[in-house]
C-alpha cells in the first residue's frame, strides 16, 4: 500500500490552541459502557435515597394539592381580580422555559456540530420531558373545571362546537403537546442503542427482558445505523424550528393581548432566549452535583461546564438587551399606559421582584466573562440557582406586575400567593425530581453510544482508531 506522503514536520499548533479532548484521560469504549451502565446496575447510593424520599413526599403533596384544587375550585389559589393569572401561569412558563435547554442541546447543537453535546444531551432531554410534564399541569388545572379539558382538543362534542383556532391559547395547546411528544420521540430514539447496551450486559432475566423490550432488537448493524443517523438528523432538523416556535407561541399568549407590558412584538425572541437561559441554568444545577456524585468527571469535563457557562452568559445578555429594549420602546411609543407599566415595574409596589430579576438574569451572569467563575464549580452552581430564581421572577414581573395595575386605577390591586399556590409549586419539584431520580437510576443518563462516537478511538482515520501510523513518515528532527 502506498500511503500518501505526509510532510515530516507537521507544524503542531501551540499548546493553548490545541483542542481539549471531549472525553478526558483517553478513556476507551469499554470504560464508557462500564462507567455509565454501572450507574443503573449497582445498588442505589445512599444520597439517592436521601434525595428520593423527600422528592416523593413532595410529589404526594402535589397530588393532595391538586385534588384539593379540583374538588374545591381555583379559588384556593391566590388569583384574584385584577391578577387573574398568578402562580399558575408563572410556573407554567417557568417550567416550560426550563424544558427548552434539552431540545436546544439535542437538536440545535447537533445541527451546529457541537460534539460536546453528547455528554449532556441525554440528561438534558430527560429534564425537558419532566419539566414539560410539570408545566402541563398548570394550564390543565387552571381552567377550573378540569373534566372539560378535552374541549381544548379538536374532539367532537355533544354541542357540536369546535375549538376556536384564532386564539393563541389554542396554538399553545398544539405547540406544547407537540413539543412534549417530539421530545419524547427524540429522547427514546437516542435511548434505543443504549438500551441495547444495558440489555447485553444484563445479569437478571427481568432486566434482560425489560431493556430488551425497549431496545426493540437493536443489533448495531451499520445498515440500521445508516437509517438511524438520517432519522436523528431529520428529528434534529424538525426539533429546531419546534423549540423556537414553542416559546414563541407561549409568548403570543401575552403579546396578542392589549395589556401594556404584554402587547410587545419583542416577546417571541425574548422568550426563546430566556427559555434557553433558564434551561441551561437548570442543566448546570442538575449536572454539577451529578458529575461528582457519579464520578463522571471524565465525560462531563470542565470544558463542558465552561461551554455551558458561555451559553448562559450569551443568552443572559440577550435577555438583558430585551429588558432594555422594552423600556426604550415603552418610552418611544409615547403611550402613557406603556410608560407607566414599565416605570411601575421598576419603582412600583413590586420593585423587589423587578430588581431580583435584573440582578439574577443580567448582572450576576456577567461574571461568567471571567474564566475563574466558569472554572469554579461552587460559583457555577450558585450562579445556576440564581438564574433559575431570576427567570422565575421574570415571569412574575411580566404576569403579575403587568396585571396588577392596568388602565383604570379603580381596578388596581395587589396579588399575594396562597398557601396552596406555594405547596403546589413545591409539589411540582417533587414530580420533577422523582422522575429525574428514577431516570438516573434506571436509564443511562449519558448517551453511551454517542460519547463513544466522539472519542479518537472511534475515528478510523485517527491513530487511536487503528489507522496505521507506521506507514506515515515518522515525525523526526531535521
Amino acid at each position, binding site marked *: 500500500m502506498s500511503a500518501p506522503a505526509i510532510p515530516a514536520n507537521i507544524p503542531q499548533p501551540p499548546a493553548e490552541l490545541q483542542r481539549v479532548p471531549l472525553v478526558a484521560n483517553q478513556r476507551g*469504549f*469499554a470504560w464508557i*459502557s462500564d462507567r455509565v451502565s454501572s450507574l443503573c446496575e449497582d445498588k442505589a447510593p445512599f444520597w439517592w435515597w436521601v434525595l428520593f424520599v423527600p422528592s416523593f413526599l413532595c410529589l404526594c403533596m402535589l397530588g393532595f394539592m391538586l385534588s384539593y384544587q379540583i374538588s374545591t375550585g381555583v379559588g384556593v389559589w391566590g388569583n384574584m381580580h385584577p391578577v387573574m393569572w398568578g402562580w399558575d401561569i408563572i410556573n407554567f412558563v417557568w417550567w416550560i422555559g426550563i424544558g427548552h435547554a434539552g431540545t436546544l442541546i439535542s437538536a440545535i447543537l447537533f445541527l451546529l456540530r457541537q460534539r460536546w453535546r453528547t455528554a449532556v444531551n441525554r440528561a438534558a432531554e430527560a429534564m425537558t420531558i419532566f419539566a414539560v410534564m410539570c408545566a402541563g399541569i398548570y394550564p390543565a388545572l387552571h381552567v377550573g373545571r378540569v373534566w372539560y379539558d378535552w374541549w381544548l382538543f*379538536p374532539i367532537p362534542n355533544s354541542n*357540536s362546537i*369546535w*375549538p*376556536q*383556532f*384564532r386564539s*393563541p391559547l*389554542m396554538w399553545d395547546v*398544539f*405547540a406544547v403537546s*407537540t413539543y412534549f*411528544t*417530539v421530545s419524547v*420521540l*427524540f429522547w427514546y*430514539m437516542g435511548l434505543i*442503542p443504549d438500551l*441495547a*447496551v444495558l440489555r*447485553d*450486559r444484563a445479569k437478571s432475566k427481568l432486566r434482560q427482558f425489560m431493556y*430488551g423490550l425497549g431496545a*426493540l*432488537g437493536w*443489533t*448495531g*448493524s*451499520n*445498515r*440500521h*445505523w*445508516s*437509517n*438511524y*443517523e*438520517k*432519522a436523528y438528523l*431529520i*428529528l434534529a432538523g*424538525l*426539533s429546531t*424550528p*419546534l423549540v423556537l*416556535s414553542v416559546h414563541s*407561541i407561549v409568548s403570543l399568549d401575552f403579546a396578542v393581548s392589549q395589556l401594556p407590558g404584554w402587547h410587545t412584538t419583542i416577546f417571541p425572541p425574548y422568550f426563546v432566549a430566556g427559555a434557553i437561559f433558564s434551561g441551561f441554568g437548570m442543566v448546570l444545577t442538575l449536572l454539577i452535583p451529578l458529575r461528582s456524585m457519579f464520578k463522571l468527571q471524565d465525560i462531563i469535563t470542565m470544558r463542558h461546564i465552561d461551554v455551558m457557562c458561555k451559553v448562559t452568559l450569551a443568552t443572559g445578555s440577550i435577555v438583558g438587551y430585551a429588558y432594555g429594549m422594552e423600556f426604550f420602546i415603552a418610552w418611544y411609543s409615547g403611550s402613557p399606559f406603556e410608560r407607566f407599566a414599565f416605570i411601575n415595574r421598576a419603582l412600583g409596589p413590586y420593585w423587589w421582584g423587578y430588581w431580583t430579576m435584573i440582578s439574577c438574569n443580567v448582572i450576576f451572569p456577567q461574571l461568567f466573562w471571567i474564566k475563574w467563575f466558569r472554572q469554579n464549580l461552587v460559583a457555577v452552581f450558585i450562579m445556576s440557582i440564581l438564574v433559575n430564581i431570576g427567570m422565575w421572577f421574570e415571569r412574575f414581573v411580566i404576569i403579575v406586575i403587568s396585571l396588577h395595575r392596568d388602565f383604570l386605577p379603580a381596578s388596581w390591586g395587589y396579588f399575594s400567593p396562597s398557601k396552596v399556590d406555594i405547596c403546589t409549586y413545591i409539589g411540582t419539584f417533587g414530580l420533577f425530581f422523582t422522575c429525574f431520580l428514577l431516570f438516573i437510576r434506571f436509564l443511562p443518563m449519558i448517551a453511551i*453510544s*454517542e460519547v463513544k*462516537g466522539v472519542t479518537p*478511538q*472511534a*475515528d*478510523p*482515520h485517527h491513530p487511536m*482508531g*487503528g*489507522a496505521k501510523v507506521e506507514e506515515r513518515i515518522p515525525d523526526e528532527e531535521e
Partner: protein
Amino acid sequence: MNGAAKPYGMIAEFTTAASVMHAAEKVRDAGFRKWDVFTPFPVHGMDHAMGLKNSKVGWFSFLGGVTGYTTGMLMIWFMNALDYPIVVGGKPMFSPYSAFPPSYELTILFGAFGSLFGMLFLNRLPRLHHPLLKNKRFALVTHDRFFVVIECDDPNYSETETRKLLEEAGSRHIEIIEE
C-alpha cells in the same frame, strides 16, 4: 427447535474502527450482498466502505410533514369555517395566517413520527429475535467490539473462501452462527 440447526452466517470480530472499515471495503469489493457490519456506534465513513446508498428515511419524514400540514389546514378550515362557522372579530371565516401555527406544529409532529417510524420500518424493527443476539460473543458489539457478518444465503458465500477473506482482512476470531 429441530435438531439440525441451519447455519445463519459467519461472524468475524475486529477490535478497531479502522480494521473493521478496511474489512468492510474488502467484503464490498468481493461482491457480497447479504452481509453487514456491526458497531457499537455509527462509524464515520462506514456507509461508503459498505457501498450503502443514502438512507430513505427522509421520504417518510417528508410524507409525514405534508400530511401534518394538510391535516392542520383542512381541519381548521372545516371546523371554523364550514362545520360550525364562528365570526371572530369580523375577520374572514378562514385565514391561513391564524391557521398556520397549529398546522406548523402538526407538520413537525407528523414529520417526527414519520422519521422515527420510517427508521424502524426500514430497519425492520422492532424485532424480538435475531440469530446474532443469541451469541455470547456478539453481545460485545454494544460494548467495544466490531463485527462483520456474512450470511450463508449470499450467493458468494463459501465456508472456506469467506473465512479466508475475513482472516486476510485481519480478524482474529471467526465463527459460524446458527439460525
